[in-house]
Structure formats: structure tokens, C-alpha cells
């Protein structure tokens, strides 16, 4: 009997559309079910949104934005709001960087054989700080710090401390151990080892993480105020609440301009640095 393989591959049917062993099929089914359940359980008011009436009210709403309020005194108010937003983001990030360094030390294993008792609890704390968004922090801190940019700054600092502390701890743990070990062999204490061996090595990394978070925080600070935590967002919520649409349009313009400016600057810097 001829046992040579056939010259041509035997014709095979395409795989069946669904088989119990196909993980992608189960995944797709689950996703489709999740989407269907989502649309089904949310009482979305499409009729209201897509009706002629809604279109008209939307049109009226947009028309009210024009003309934007460009009177000098209001522009000055918006400029102050923008400056406040920038200051909130910068100062919040600076506070977070300082707190992040302080928390990164107990959150990392400094050398081999370091018992690092504080590692687990500190990391838990950092994760908790990080898991709660800035806006929720702002809402919580308003109770203790009152309305205004102070609450916003603290909120940004709280969330960013979680993010930066974790990144800093990773950086400290991944730093080359040589210089630190040399100092430790001479009997130098942990604090001075950190200051003179570890910190100089990881400083550029810490700076780049901090700048990156600052960029994010400018964007966050712009909208943080809608719960009353200062900056452009607070102006926006205030004037929108009073239905002063011309002023709202100016504030929205300032907000978008700020975000676009930050995006463009960061893009240009990144390109300049990587080229």
C-alpha cells in the first residue's frame, strides 16, 4: 500500500464558528453578553437625546456659548484661575514627590538581607492612596480643608503620592547595589547610604517620573474644581450653575488651551529629548 503523503494537503473545512474548547469564543460571548446586559439595564434616554426637541435644545445650548465673554475684568479672573490651576498642580506634585521619597524608603528592600518590615504595610498604604481618584480625594478633603485651592492641592498630592511612592520604591529597589554596599561595608548608616549612594543614582529617574505626573496633574487640576476645589474647574462649575454661558465658554476655552499647550509642550520636549 502506498503510504506516501498526498502531494496536496487534504482539503480541510474551516474551524467551526463556536467550539467549547475555543477560549476566544467564550471570551467573545462573554463580552457580547456584558455589552447587551449593560445597554439593557441602563435606562438610557435615547428617545430624549435623539429627538428633534433635544436637538433643538442642544442647538440652543451651544448657541448660548456665543459670544464668549471677553471683557477685561473677566479675562483677568480666568487668568487668575489658570494660574491657580498651574500652581495647584505644581505644588501638589512637589508635595507628592517629597512624600513619595519619604514613603519609598520604608516601601523598598534597601539591600539584600534587609528584613524590610515596613514594606508590605507601606505598599498597602500607597496602593490605597493611588486607588482613590483625585476628584474623590477632593470631595473628601473639602470636609477638612474647606472650599478652595488648598483642598485641591492636597487631593492632587494624596493621589500622586500613591503613584510616585510606588514608582520611586521600584526605582530604589532596582538601583545598582554596588556603591551602597561599599558604604555599608564601611559602617555607614542607612540614611547616609540613601543620601550619598542611592539617591544620586536614581535622581534622574525620579525627576522624569515627577515631571510626567506633573503633566497629568495639570490636566486633572483643570477639572478638579467642579467639586469646589479651586482653579478653573471651580469657575466653570460656578458660572455654569448660574447659566452664564458666555463666561462658561471663555473658561472652557482657557481649559482646552491649557490642556493643548501642555500636550504640545510635552510632545515637543519628548521628541527633542529622544532625537
Amino acid at each position, binding site marked *: 500500500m502506498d503510504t506516501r503523503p498526498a502531494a496536496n494537503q487534504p482539503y480541510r473545512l474551516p474551524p467551526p464558528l463556536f467550539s467549547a474548547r475555543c*477560549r476566544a469564543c467564550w*471570551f467573545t460571548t462573554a463580552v457580547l453578553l*456584558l*455589552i447587551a*446586559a*449593560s*445597554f439593557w*439595564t*441602563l*435606562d*438610557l*434616554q*435615547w428617545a*430624549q*437625546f435623539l429627538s428633534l426637541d*433635544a436637538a433643538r*435644545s*442642544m442647538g440652543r*445650548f451651544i448657541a448660548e456659548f456665543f459670544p464668549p465673554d471677553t471683557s477685561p475684568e473677566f479675562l483677568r479672573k480666568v487668568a487668575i484661575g489658570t*494660574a*491657580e490651576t498651574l*500652581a*495647584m498642580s*505644581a*505644588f*501638589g506634585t*512637589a508635595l507628592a514627590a517629597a512624600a513619595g521619597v519619604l514613603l519609598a524608603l520604608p516601601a523598598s528592600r534597601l539591600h539584600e538581607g534587609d528584613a524590610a518590615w515596613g514594606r508590605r504595610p507601606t505598599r498597602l498604604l500607597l496602593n*490605597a492612596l493611588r*486607588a*482613590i*481618584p483625585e*476628584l*474623590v480625594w477632593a*470631595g*473628601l478633603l473639602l*470636609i*477638612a*480643608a*474647606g472650599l*478652595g*485651592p*488648598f483642598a*485641591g*492641592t492636597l487631593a492632587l498630592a494624596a493621589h500622586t503620592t500613591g503613584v510616585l511612592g510606588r514608582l520611586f520604591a521600584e526605582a530604589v529597589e532596582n538601583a545598582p547595589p554596588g556603591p551602597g554596599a561599599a558604604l555599608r561595608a564601611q559602617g555607614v548608616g542607612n540614611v547616609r547610604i540613601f543620601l550619598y549612594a542611592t539617591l544620586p543614582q536614581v535622581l534622574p529617574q525620579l525627576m522624569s517620573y515627577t515631571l510626567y505626573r506633573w503633566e497629568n496633574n495639570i*490636566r486633572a487640576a*483643570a*477639572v478638579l474644581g*467642579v*467639586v469646589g476645589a*479651586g482653579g478653573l*474647574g471651580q469657575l*466653570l*462649575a460656578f458660572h*455654569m450653575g448660574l447659566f452664564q454661558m458666555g463666561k462658561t465658554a471663555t473658561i*472652557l476655552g482657557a*481649559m*482646552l488651551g491649557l*490642556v*493643548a499647550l501642555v*500636550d504640545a509642550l510635552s510632545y515637543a520636549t519628548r521628541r527633542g529629548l529622544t532625537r
Partner: protein
Amino acid sequence: MSTTALQPPPRRPPRPAPAHDPAWLSRLFWLGAALVLLWPMVVATEFRPWILFEPKNLEVTAQFLGSFVPPAHSADFLALVARETWRTVAIATAGLTLALVVAVPLTLLSVRVLSISALSGRMARGPAVLRQLVRWLLIVLRSVPELVWALVFVRVVGLGPTAGVLAIALTYGGMLGKVYAEILESGEPHTTETLLRNGSSRLQAFSFGLLPQNAAELTSYTVYRWECAIRSSVVLGFVGGGGLGQQLDNSMKMFNGGEVFTMLVVFVALVAMADRVSAGLRRALG
């Protein structure tokens, strides 16, 4: 030859270790410079930490924090939290689905690899302009923060999940469209080009050349964005977008610490779960 040249030079005594930090002056300078730079910000942000410790504020804070324990755990409330948690997930999922509806056509319009005129030299004027316009549209959609979209839509459709879903759909539509286009253009264009050169339509070239090559990366990014959408749908609740955030806002305004605490715990658990699910799925995609 004199014998002195053969003698070893007199040993200098070892330099004593500096008693002070040798770089203390520059450190002091930079510390001072940083303080001077930070001062205007301290003023602008009304940074007055002692406010936190004024007796009146301290009392309010202590009362609020004290009411965290015991966390609210009545059956009614837990049922409400479960319902709102599901609504949060549903808002994120529905929003992301609509974002895909926005993003996919715009991506197909803006991807340069699918240009037929670009096969032979430069892309023609019309398609190039169209692609640039679509790109700008995506950038505009993306750069308006979702919170602002939500504030606008709350005015038009009223409080509730519709505003949240629409806000997520628009912002995430922009993000997905831009990143999809980048992913599709970063791959190897050879297969797609061959298909196009041999007369396949653009949609065919996309489905049989471009999509199979990049499917894993596209799916992975979409799953990651779903995770982000869950986080932001909670935030959108604060301006009236429905879900867990709206309940959290209500409880905060009523100083009901027990409810706030329960919802914060549920929220953190939800985010951690979404994080796990998304990381697991992305690892499975490779």
C-alpha cells in the same frame, strides 16, 4: 646615580575624611532656590495647613472620620451599593461600546496604510487633507476632559447614566481612534500593500492584512481602556453621571461617613478587580 632617587617618595599622610558634607554650599543654594520658587505657589494655592488643625475643623473632621465606623451594612444599603456598582460597570461598558462605534470608522478613514494613491508615490491632495481633518477631530474629542463633556450632557439630557455614557463615548472614542491608528501604522505594511496592489478593496486589505497582524495589540489596548473607563465612570458620577460616584457624592454631602466608607471600599475593590481582569486578559493575549 644618587641613592636618593631610589628611595620611595615620602608618604603623604592619608587625607582625613571631610568632617562636613563637601557639597553643602550647593545643596543649601538649591534648597533656598526651591523655597523661593515654591513660595508664590504656596500663596496662590492658599496653602495653610494649620486650617486642618483648627479646633472647629478638627471637630468636624473627627466627627466625619468617627462616623466611618461602623461601615454602613444594612441589607437595603448593600443592595443599593451592588446595584450602583453594576451601573458603574455598565456605564463604562456601554460608553466604551459607543466609543468603538465612533473610533472604528474614524480610524479606517485616517489610517495612511490603506491609501491607494499612496501606493504610487505621494498621497493625493484630497485624501491627505481628509486624513488630517479626521486626525484633528480625534484630537479635539480626546482633549476635552470627560468631566467637561459630562457637565455639558447633564445639562442636555438631565442627571443619570445617559450623560456619563455619552461623555465616555466621546472622549474614549477620540483616544481609541488615535491609538488604533498609531498601532495600525506602526506594523509591517507589506501584506496590506500587496493586497492593495493586487486589486483588493481597502476593506478587504484591512480585514485580511492589517487586522490579523494587529488584533492582539488592539484588543489589549481596548481592554486597558475599559479598565480606565470604569475608573472614570465613578468620577463622572460626581457631576451627575449616575452610578457609584453619584451615591458617593450624595453620602459625602450628607456627612454619612459609614456609607462613604462602605462605598470607598467597594470602589477600591472594583478597581482592583478590573485591574486583575484586564491584566489577566492582556497576558493571555500575549
